[in-house]
């Protein structure tokens, strides 16, 4: 799934292609050479913490902001100098930006009217997208009376209506409460896929990104750290930042230990066999990631860790357990059915090093 760096000329790519986008505000660098591509029909999530430049990037793609350097291309043509309204892209704002002086129908019809669709076509399309977002029979509503979830759907309908080549969603669920968010993130992905919409979905929430996207672009401090399918990103975070951002906090400084029976890695909580397929250079510093969900509790094995249970937090289907081992705090996730010792008691964990350990260089 990993895409190569785009060519300097963008003629070769049918979808969206960003090459070396730079943008600074005064001395503050918002984007430091961002490049990636979005294929037609693909949903790409741009994932990163607040302030990493995600929204600036959307503004640049939409033509609301000008990059200092770099090029945005669509279907092989550079968009430099092309004003926002001629790009044929859609953008769903975080605060929705519904026009307060227009009703639901007028809001959704806006883009179609701008595109010069005949009246009858507009009415049909508005009905169609309202149906799509699950709010048929809403056209006459005053947008100021909509609930958060309704406003979100109307904003989505408005962005989808004029058949944008590319739809950008800027933290579309950011202002909604948790239950609604979980419900809508699944639905949103379905709607986008159903309409085969090419989309860029910006979020700081990895769950959202995992649920919606075909591919994830992980960003931090104005740069792309890693791109790949959700599962690949989660399985193989390429950096300490990526690991921490994905909630993987069992990060142990490690050292290579060569013995006669093979290579081992030495950490503060134990010595483990070097995981297969992850070659390590001797004398090099690295970090070992221990995956929280891939350890088994209370089952001694060839590869094990023991420690005191610090806390157990019940999360519904799973329980999160914090264990203090040799002074280090480690987190694990077990199915709720697992029998766990009480806080303060000893817990033994075992795991398969090939699966549960990953070497990260930094």
């Amino acid at each position, binding site marked *: 799934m990993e895409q190569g760096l785009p060519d300097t000329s963008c003629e070769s790519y049918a979808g969206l292609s960003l090459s070396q986008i730079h943008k600074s505000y005064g001395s503050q660098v918002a984007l430091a050479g961002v490049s990636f591509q979005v294929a037609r029909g693909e949903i790409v999530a741009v994932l990163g913490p607040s302030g990493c430049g995600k929204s600036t990037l959307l503004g640049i793609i939409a033509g609301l902001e000008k990059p200092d350097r770099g090029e945005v291309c669509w279907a092989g043509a550079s968009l430099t*100098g092309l004003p*926002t*309204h001629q*790009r044929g892209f859609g*953008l769903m704002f975080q605060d929705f*930006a519904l026009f307060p002086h227009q009703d639901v129908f007028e809001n959704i019809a*806006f883009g179609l009217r701008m595109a010069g669709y005949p009246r009858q076509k507009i009415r049909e399309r508005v009905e169609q997208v309202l149906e799509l977002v699950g709010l048929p029979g809403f056209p006459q509503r005053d947008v100021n009376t909509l609930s958060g979830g309704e406003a979100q759907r109307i904003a989505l309908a408005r962005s989808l209506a004029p058949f944008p080549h590319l739809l950008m969603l800027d933290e579309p669920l950011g202002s909604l409460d948790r239950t609604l968010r979980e419900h809508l993130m699944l639905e949103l992905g379905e709607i986008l896929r159903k309409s085969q919409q090419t989309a860029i979905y910006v979020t700081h929430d990895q769950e959202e990104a995992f649920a919606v996207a075909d591919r994830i672009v992980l960003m931090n401090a104005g740069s792309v750290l890693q791109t790949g399918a959700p599962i690949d990103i989660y399985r193989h975070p390429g950096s300490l930042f990526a690991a921490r951002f994905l909630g993987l906090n069992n990060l142990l400084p490690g050292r290579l230990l060569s013995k006669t029976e093979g290579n081992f890695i030495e950490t503060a909580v134990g010595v483990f066999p070097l995981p297969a397929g992850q070659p390590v250079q001797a004398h090099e510093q690295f970090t070992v990631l221990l995956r929280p969900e891939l350890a088994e509790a209370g089952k001694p094995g060839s590869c094990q860790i023991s420690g005191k249970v610090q806390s157990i937090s019940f999360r519904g289907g799973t329980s999160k357990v914090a264990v203090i081992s040799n002074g280090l705090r480690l987190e694990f996730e077990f199915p709720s059915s697992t029998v766990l010792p009480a806080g303060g008691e000893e817990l033994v964990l075992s795991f398969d090093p090939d699966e549960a350990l990953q070497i990260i260089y930094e």
Partner: protein
Amino acid sequence: MKALSARLRSISFHYWLLWVAPLAFLGVFYFYPLVNILAVSFGRGQSGPVAPFIEVFTTPSLLKILGFTFWQATLSTAFTLLFGLPGAYLLARYRLRGRNLILALTGIAFVLPTLVVAAAFNAILGPRGWANLLLMQMLGLEQPPLHFVNTFGAILLAHVFYNTTIILRLVGDFWAHLDPRLEQAARVLGANGWQTLRRVTLPLLTPALASAALLVFIFDFTSFGVILVLGGPRFATLEVEIYNQTISLFNLPLAAALSLIQLGCTLALTVLYTRLNARLARPLSLRPRQFTLRRLQSWQGRLLAGLYLAALLGLLTLPLVALVTRSLTRVESLPDGSGVLAIHPTLDYYRELGVNRFNSLFFIPPITSIAISLGYATATVALALALGLPAAWALAHNRKAASSQVFEPLLMLPLGTSAVTLGLGFIIALDRPPLDLRASPLLIPLAHTLVAFPFVVRSLAPALGSIKPRLRQAAAVLGANPGLVFRYIDLPLVGRALFVAAIFAFTISMGEFGATALVSRPEYPTLPVMIYRFLSQPGSLNYGKALALSTILCLITAAGMLAIERFRIADIGEF
């Protein structure tokens, strides 16, 4: 990079284009006459061009006039703010029965010609006003006990009467659309009512407050009719002195020097304001009014609001009631010399309006002046909006740009220039080629547009600047080009401000007197000119006709205001 810099250049070029029409207008109809009048004035100076300035700053009486001008304007502005702010708060935050009526009444007060206001205050508090008549009858006095006319108090009261509407409208309108959740957030964070007001509400209101206070101050600073008529000979401001020096003494060099000093003061104030505003203005998310209005809950609140509104309505309506009733009343002493007054209701003054008593080419039936004024006012609205909209647009979208910083004070200059100076400038500069407009029917609308223009820009620019940039971006992303963004987003959202601007232009035109008196042709008198003619002629019939015409002017503007307050196009401006 090339494309980017070209784009940047085209953006600033686009803003410069917006300035072309407004600046051309100001150049031809403001600066050109001003240069002419100054050239004429300085040309006549006997002892060098700076002699008039030396005279101003070495003559104690002129220095006193200068000081008094500032003093009365400061005091008037302070009283107007004190009196108007509670009203702005009430109108902004509470559902009040009769709010449209209150707004319309304050609007009428604002647009009344100064002569009519003077007459109205005279009709209630003057030596033969209702209050004195009543006291004389009740106490059996031979002399009127109240001495109101020719006092400082009369000037202040009339200024508050005039300008309260500016506070109610500019501040109240902004306040009404201020998101109450910001205040609620402050309350939740532990601020009490006073802290919320001081730390959240007032700072957010500051741009509107500063803009309104500045307008009021400049108005009071350049006030003319009120001080001339209600202040009497004891109180002279710069404006009155310019008039005296020009009309009575023909000392044009001194008049020019005084008007230059006046201009300098207002320019300085405006520059100060512009600086302040550029720092204070921030895009606020304005809320539809129906979400910001509450009901008054406690009885204390209702009582206070009731008392305040009674005082407001009293100040605003009593002079008008006096005006109307006097226009329908004949008061005369009984012929027996007892001093007892006889009061008869009568319609004679109105009947006389259709009669041309003078049978001269220059005199027409008084009623015709109404049609003339309406025509001029319509033309003024069209001109002022056509010129004001691009300027306000450029200001709102590019306030930090050099062009805005330079041009905004320029736009305000006509406000700081006395009506007398404006009229005189037109007469001197526009009566010969290349611009001979003496016979043009556009001359008066042009003069009125000059006066109305700053108001139009002032009421449009904040509304244009307050629309969230997000909405424009959303429209652009949905395919709207800049023109369509303006048409579908800005125009409907500033609809209310546009209406306010149009009303300002219309009512200023209907009531403008200072410049009109100098510029208008005798065979086409406007309503205020006609009123002035009758006021300056002796006899109770002429006085009555003046009051009748004033009453009609009140009714026309009241009808216009009420219609606009009530029948805004499908609430389109009520964002």
